[in-house]
């Protein structure tokens, strides 16, 4: 069936998306390159002003429409932009590590998004499942000769497995009560790590760096005469993981499964009257989400080279949740933008480092007050973008 007769929708231009992406990338490079606090503050203020001005001219509506309709093309541009940022800072350990953090936190929040944004299951133990992935890397890299890419997968699977311990209480309770169960898990997890000597106790343990087919990720290397930070290895791999997670989450959303998850989140009773097996889909969403979080954690453990209980606290889980609220629940693009803001701004603004949680709190309150659907609200589902236009 041809889509032409179905709808008289205006064809959406690719350009607003490209322009917004290009400007955002240039801005991000400027922000990351800035060293003086005064300049950084000026850049941030300028950024806020420009965003508000662009929003009042409706630029973001047309940009978001072109992202919806030309997702493949703009996704490709976004990958090029990310590689461009990395190339610009090719010998800068600090910036590349920051960029890797953004990529892997984005993967983790994509997982939370499947759980909360689609299925409505609030997971306050995101950082714990991230930690399970990281500790998996630490233990397996130290004691086994398993290929490290396989270790990433095992990290994801173990996070899903640990999550399934929570499934029974989460399925038997609803709403806030299910959330409290996950909070309890987050607190128990940290305590468990601290008293467990095999896992290094409160001091944590070292994680051996990644090595694929003899290529060690922890060595700086040179391309021609240009020396490149070893973090570039991890950056490229993290980008691949993010692209994979993004594509999977998108396909999930644009399928009957995405519809099932929305239906049960919005009205469990009605969904059940139309044959939805509520438990099955909640379990599916929870496990898929934890799988993503675990993979991100496993890779992040290798990047950092070190894991300790204090890196996976309840407060870290709250940061992941605040990214979700800030970005726009259910919109993967919004999540990446929000992750950039939440990770990069406090790192660059050294003056507020101590008060970063205060900043997160203020951002979340501001978003809930003025833009409750997040920076980039989720559009209505289109199973095949552009179909029917």
């Amino acid at each position: 069936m041809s889509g032409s007769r179905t709808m008289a929708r205006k064809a959406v231009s690719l350009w607003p998306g490209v322009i917004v992406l290009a400007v955002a990338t240039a801005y991000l490079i400027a922000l990351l390159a800035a060293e003086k606090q005064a300049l950084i503050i000026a850049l941030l203020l300028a950024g806020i002003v420009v965003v508000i001005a662009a929003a009042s001219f409706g630029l973001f509506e047309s940009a978001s429409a072109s992202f919806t309709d030309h997702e493949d093309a703009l996704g490709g541009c976004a990958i090029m932009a990310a590689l461009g940022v990395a190339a610009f800072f090719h010998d800068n350990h600090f910036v590349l590590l920051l960029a890797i953090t953004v990529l892997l936190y984005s993967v983790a929040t994509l997982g939370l998004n499947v759980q909360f944004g689609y299925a409505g299951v609030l997971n306050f133990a995101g950082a714990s499942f991230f930690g399970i992935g990281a500790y998996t890397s630490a233990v397996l890299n130290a004691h086994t000769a398993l290929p490290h890419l396989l270790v990433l997968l095992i990290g994801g699977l173990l996070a899903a497995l640990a999550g399934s311990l929570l499934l029974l209480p989460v399925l038997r309770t609803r709403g806030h009560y299910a959330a409290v169960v996950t909070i309890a898990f987050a607190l128990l997890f940290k305590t468990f790590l601290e008293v467990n000597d095999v896992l290094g106790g409160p001091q944590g343990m070292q994680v051996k760096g990644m090595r694929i087919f003899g290529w060690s990720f922890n060595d700086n290397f040179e391309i021609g005469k240009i020396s490149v930070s070893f973090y570039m290895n991890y950056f490229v791999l993290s980008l691949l993981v993010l692209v994979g997670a993004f594509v999977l989450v998108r396909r999930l959303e644009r399928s009957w499964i995405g519809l099932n998850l929305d239906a049960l989140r919005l009205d469990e009773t009605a969904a059940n009257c139309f044959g939805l097996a509520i438990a099955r889909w909640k379990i599916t969403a929870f496990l898929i989400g934890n799988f993503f979080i675990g993979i991100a954690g496993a890779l992040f453990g290798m990047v950092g080279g070190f894991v300790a209980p204090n890196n996976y606290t309840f407060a870290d889980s709250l940061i992941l949740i605040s990214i979700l609220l800030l970005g726009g629940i259910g919109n993967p693009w919004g999540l990446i933008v929000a992750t950039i803001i939440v990770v990069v701004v406090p790192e660059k603004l050294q003056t507020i480092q101590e008060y970063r949680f205060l900043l997160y709190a203020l951002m979340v309150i501001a978003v809930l007050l003025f833009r409750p659907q997040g920076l980039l609200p989720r559009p209505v589902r289109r199973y095949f973008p552009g179909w029917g236009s």
Partner: protein
Amino acid sequence: MSALLEARGLSKHFGGVLALDGLDLAVAPNEILGLIGPNGSGKTTFFNVITGIYRADTGQVGFDGLDITNASGRTVYLAGIARTFQRSRLSLPLSIFDNIMIGNHKRLNQGLWFNLARRNEFRREFEESYAAARALVEVFEPALAGRLFEPVAGLPMIDRRRIEICRALISAPKLLLLDEPSAGMTHEETAELMDDILLVRARNQNLTIIIVEHEMGVIERITDRCVVLNFGRKIAEGPYRIVAADAQVQEAYLGAA
């Protein structure tokens, strides 16, 4: 003739209130049965017990050769019963198409692999489903048929009601339970909606309907037979004209003279 749906001795209480009190009710295949009675007489409770939202205290329900007593909503739906709700229960942020597809659950491939990896096959199923949804909406409101990807939240009551009925009809159920389809609509809108339902039924001869309704004009026009409830008990049964003239029925509606 054997009944399509048969309830025997169905009781349900909420605290000290008996919402259903040993109700016996049968509906024959292809029949349109009106379920009437004053507010609180147990009509909606009956629907909720049948569709697994409430559990019956006592009694049995049989449907199409199956025992569906206290079966889950999912089992009842898979057996071929679809319903609408008294207060619209659409998922407002979702599109018209999404809402209708919720009702199409049993005919869609729900496999994880199919949905994530077989995008070409998924696309075929999507396009077939789209054509089916569009054809059904066309019967009720041609103007809506071109707007299937708009969110339901922006639509007026009558359109929401139409979509709710499409959601119930899309899976071609054997039995349709309509819970006060006229609520929140004018006489004209209700009449139009009923005509559309009858049109769909005329195309699909196997559709049996139980309708709960306060608007007696609707009941008189479309039902073959009526069952009158009061305090959870059946007080009269038969064609509308006859039950309407029944002294007990008039007393139930108007109070004792």
